[in-house]
């Protein structure tokens, strides 16, 4: 192949200056990517320490995030956003219905636990597979159109799924009440539980709820089995997404976003590429859904509501669509904010503003109160607008800008100090 080109391509004689293809480093990743994976892995595995910086019982303890329930949500929604980013970040196709895949994955996962076994491995596999199939169907139809049409079609599918799960499909979805595990579920692989026994999800006997607590002085660190399983799933998902970003497939997805016309006239059909990206991101959503079920063994239709779809969009753009680490940061940021902001109540606020005179405290509490507690969605909406208006590139781009500003300043200083002696 290469020889042929050099024979025919006599425009300029071929030189041997062409650099060799880069050889694969750690896990097939180049230096920068490999360090990113290692960094994320370390942070994730040490999260129970890192996220609990404040001593138990201190005034700041409410800002701690190192408890299992919240940490699980960080990594699970991280997976969701990583998957969404493969579709939106690379191809630019804005799906407004990805929560449907998460929901379908959850339902499939809980049925696996009801019918087969309480082991989470089969349940997660079923979640991913069913969500993948469903996204294949939805993607096949929705991807016939692009742009705004595509967004609306995916939104329509999600609303349809929600409506069905909420009402007609009640025998399968539990309707308004959702699905929970029951001791009398016919788990054909596990055998029946004794009456009144609570079914708990496990990994070959290791229960998801199992935790090891470590007391260090005033600090309490919790190491939860469920969190670590979800964290490992996220690390694998993150690693795979980097592989996709750096693959020929990933470049084709970016080419789809950049210029479909040229792609067509370069002999490449954009449709299967976008469909593959859609299904992959649907499977990521299914994995997230399966993990959610593995952690709390229940599902409700509200998981598929359009706000949930909007939330994953926000996570991705907040972190930085099309960047590797952005979605993970975005998911963590949103879930942390949600958790902290929605637990603040009037008493908390009064505590914060106690330093001020009484009348000022009242004014401040009145101003801030609509945005906290039940008002979390208001804050979310404002955040949404603020990000799109002021930070379209997300946190990652914002960080890069800051860094380059800092570096330039440093560079200027260095240049100035170098030139000074000569003068």
């Amino acid at each position: 192949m290469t020889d042929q080109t050099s024979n025919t391509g006599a425009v300029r004689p071929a030189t041997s200056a062409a650099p060799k293809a880069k050889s694969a480093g750690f896990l097939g990743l180049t230096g920068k990517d490999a360090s990113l994976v290692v960094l994320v892995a370390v942070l994730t595995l040490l999260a129970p320490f890192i996220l609990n910086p404040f001593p138990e019982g201190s005034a700041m303890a409410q800002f701690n995030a190192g408890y299992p329930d919240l940490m699980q949500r960080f990594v699970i929604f991280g997976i969701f956003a990583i998957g969404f980013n493969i579709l939106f970040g690379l191809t630019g196709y804005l799906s407004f219905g990805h929560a449907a895949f998460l929901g379908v994955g959850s339902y499939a996962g809980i049925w696996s636990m009801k019918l087969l076994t309480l082991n989470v491995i089969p349940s997660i596999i079923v979640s991913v597979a069913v969500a993948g199939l469903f996204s294949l169907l939805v993607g096949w139809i929705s991807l016939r159109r692009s742009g705004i049409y595509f967004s609306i079609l995916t939104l329509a599918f999600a609303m349809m799924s929600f409506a069905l799960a909420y009402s007609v499909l009640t025998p399968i979805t539990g309707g308004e009440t959702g699905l929970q595990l029951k001791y009398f579920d016919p788990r054909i692989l596990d055998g029946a539980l004794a009456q009144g026994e609570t079914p708990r999800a496990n990994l070959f006997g290791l229960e998801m709820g199992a935790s090891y607590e470590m007391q260090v002085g005033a600090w309490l660190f919790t190491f939860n089995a469920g969190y670590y399983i979800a964290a490992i799933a996220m690390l694998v998902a993150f690693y795979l997404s980097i592989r996709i970003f750096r693959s020929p497939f990933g470049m084709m997805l970016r080419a789809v976003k950049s210029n479909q016309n040229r792609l067509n006239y370069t002999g490449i059909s954009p449709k299967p590429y976008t469909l593959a990206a859609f299904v992959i991101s649907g499977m990521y959503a299914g994995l997230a859904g399966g993990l959610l079920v593995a952690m709390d063994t229940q599902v409700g239709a509200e998981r598929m509501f359009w706000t949930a779809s909007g939330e994953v969009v926000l996570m991705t753009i907040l972190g930085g669509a099309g960047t590797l680490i952005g979605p993970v940061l975005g998911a963590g940021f949103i879930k942390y904010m949600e958790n902290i902001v929605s637990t603040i109540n009037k008493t908390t606020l009064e505590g914060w503003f106690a330093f001020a005179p009484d009348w000022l405290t009242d004014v401040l509490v009145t101003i801030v109160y609509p945005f906290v507690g039940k008002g979390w969605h208001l804050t979310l909406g404002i955040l949404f607008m603020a990000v799109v208006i002021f930070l379209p590139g997300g946190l990652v781009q914002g960080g890069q800008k800051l860094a380059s500003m800092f570096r330039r300043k440093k560079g200027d200083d260095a240049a100035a100090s170098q030139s000074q002696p000569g003068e």
Partner: protein
Amino acid sequence: MDAIILQILNGLDKGSAYALIALGLTLIFGTLGVVNFAHGALFMLGAFCAVTFSRLLQLSHTVIDETQKDFLGNPLKVDVPYIYEILGESAGAAVIDWAVPLSLLMAIPVMIAIGVIMERGLIKHFYKRPHADQILVTFGLAIVLQEIIKYFYGANPIPTPAPDAFIGSFDFGAMIGFDAGSIVYPYWRLVYFFFAAVIIAAVFAFLQFTTFGMVVRAGMADRETVTLLGIDIDKRFTMMFGIAAAVAGLAGVMYTPINSPNYHMGMDFLVLSFVVVVVGGMGSLPGAVLAGFLLGIVEAFASMTQVLEILPGINQIVIYLVAIVVLLTRPRGLMGRKGVMED
């Protein structure tokens, strides 16, 4: 036969709402090229204009009525709306009774103002941004608007009745020669349909017969050329946004007696209205209206008990199914123009 007529009539009121919202969406999209996910919120704001107005009318103060006694024999305290004192008791009562139609008067300037503020304050900065950004920012705005309404009005639906004169139903079947009782139709729904028809006709007439409308139509077809002709199209587009907001708002005002307004009604209607726009054909005003009524009627048919026995739940998804089928067979929608939003 009578069942068919009944379902068509049943579809008309919801279809009217879809048509009005879809009309506004298409106006904004066609003139400004902006995909407005906050349009459903405008419909919702209109409905809450009606709620606010009827609450304002019912503002009252307590007086001691010497002529009435409570069971202990004390003079009875009664709430007397201020409006009774301003207009007299019978006129005041009539005004309160007619609160919903009267709030149209308040809704028009309020909605136009909201629309203009929205366009000048937010949307105009997004003309040159990708559609995805427009969707996202208006989506965020929709969340903000509905959360504000939720904060002030609570999460529960607020019943807002129609004037007494329109409460109840009439026997449409008997009027056109069927058996009495075969087609019974509530008055207010008929009012809503005629109201929608008038608004739609007014919008079309406005675009067709005024110079303003002509410029806007020209701008929809080719914005650059119109700008080159030295016409300040931006100002007109701002006005167009105000009008579209007013259309959505008025649709919301009049819809309150049919469905008690709640803070999330906007999003419920928005998704369906977008589906309507897509089915009608993006950028086509007649398409939006036609598809609105069509889908309203289709939904009504799917809600018949006979249909639901065979296909349970079909009423909740039929519109989406129609949309999917239309998009697969006619990708540009029923009346879509070539080259609109193709990439």
